[in-house]
């Protein structure tokens, strides 16, 4: 029973709940086995008390979705334990590439005309107009150097932090994440220059403000 003494699974208590440290040098089979042993051993009060959230740290081990589910199931056998999140130092190449795409600014120079849809991953910098009936979509922020007369959908995969900014903001409809904002039926002549749309933190609707305030509401836009 030399192996068991190496302790591939370490349980730590923190003020937020439990942290499960899983060793990243042994095999997954060993981990599962040891985890089951640890949890089935009688720990008295610990596994019978009130609900405790568990954070699983896997170090340099990459867990597939199925492996995560296995561990979640084992921990779930104890009624009062709930897996909060998995933390790992590594991600797959595909995930890394996705993250990189989401973080890049895609520059497009053209007029988006009626019936056309421009959809990008990441932030969109459009140099040109969006005409009525045209649509632009981005998983991140949208910046239009030109007149936004059509439709724009920022954070289209659900990012509520996304902003939509335009030199001339006269959209027919604005969407950020799952929220939709329709244009007023009549635009008055003055204004609408250099504006940006966003969802305030404590709100359920899209707000349009002067572009100059964007650094206050979304300071993380700065990549300097």
């Amino acid at each position, binding site marked *: 029973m030399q192996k068991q003494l190496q302790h591939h699974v370490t349980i730590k208590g923190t003020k937020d709940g439990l942290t499960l440290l899983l060793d990243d040098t042994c095999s997954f089979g060993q981990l599962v086995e040891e985890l089951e042993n640890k949890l089935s051993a009688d720990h008295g009060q610990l596994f019978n008390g009130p609900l405790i959230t568990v954070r699983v740290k896997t170090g340099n081990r990459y867990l597939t979705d199925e492996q995560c589910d296995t561990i979640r199931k084992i921990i779930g056998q104890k009624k009062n334990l709930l897996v909060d999140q998995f933390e790992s130092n590594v991600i797959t190449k595909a995930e890394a590439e996705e993250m990189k795409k989401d973080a890049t600014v895609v520059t497009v120079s053209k007029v988006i005309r009626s019936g056309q849809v421009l959809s990008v991953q990441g932030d969109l910098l459009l140099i040109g107009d969006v005409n*009525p009936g045209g649509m632009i979509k981005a998983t991140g922020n949208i910046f239009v150097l030109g007149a936004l007369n059509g439709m724009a959908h920022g954070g289209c995969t659900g990012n509520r932090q996304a902003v939509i900014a335009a030199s001339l903001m006269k959209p027919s409809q604005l969407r950020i994440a799952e929220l939709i904002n329709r244009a007023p039926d009549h635009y008055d002549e003055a204004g609408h220059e250099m504006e940006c749309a966003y969802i305030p933190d404590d709100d359920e609707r899209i707000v349009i403000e002067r572009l100059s305030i964007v650094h206050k509401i979304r300071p993380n836009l700065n990549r300097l």
Partner: protein
Amino acid sequence: MGEAIVITSGKGGVGKTTTSANIGTSLALSGKKVCLVDTDIGLRNLDVLMGLENRIIYDLVDVVEGRCKLHQALIKDKRFECLYLLPAAQTKDKSSVQPEQMKQIIQELKQDYDYIIIDCPAGIEQGFKNAVAGADKSIVVTNPETASVRDADRIIGLLEQEDVEPPKLIVNRVRSNLMKSGDSLDVDEIVSILAIELIGVVVDDENVIKAANKGEPIALNPNSKASIAYRNIARRILGESVPLTPIEEEKGFFSKIKMLLGMK
């Protein structure tokens, strides 16, 4: 080798056929060999506007289906030796012709003519695809109204995907009084939305309707403002630089005198 120009608009009733007839006529007036091609199969009109309806024996679909040679289907104009029309079929529909076949016909016509003017049907389906297939250049016709500009925008987007040069714009049926009072879209506004080069502005002129009903293109009548506009468009197609004439209402005799006397 000639040049094929497609006249299109997206929306119906903005004056594609009238424009085709008049540009064709104006080009013929300057001595070019011109062939008009009507691709609006099932709803042909170009022959009526040109007053050539009673001379149709074979049509576009007959050519495509091999019932006649291309030159047999061409109708010579009453007034010009150098102007011909290839009429569309009236009893078939748009699906009886494929873009590839259209391309072939236009290619053949380009050998013999300086300009081939293709009249495109309304819409963005098969008829549009056929009309655009063989074209080298395109002209988009719009009226100064929102719906028409919206459709023109859509069409320009579709033309960008095709193998044609960037389209030129004609704003048709302009009413200067409405434009001045701001009740209709301004020409500058339309150009800024569509972001393409303006090649002509044609005023709304009842003489156009009169001429169309007579089967005489307005471009033949040198006294009408619309006619001058169409002739100027033809000259711009030929490569001349003709300044755009301001769209002012013609002033009456009395107002001219008043202006001279400084009363206005």
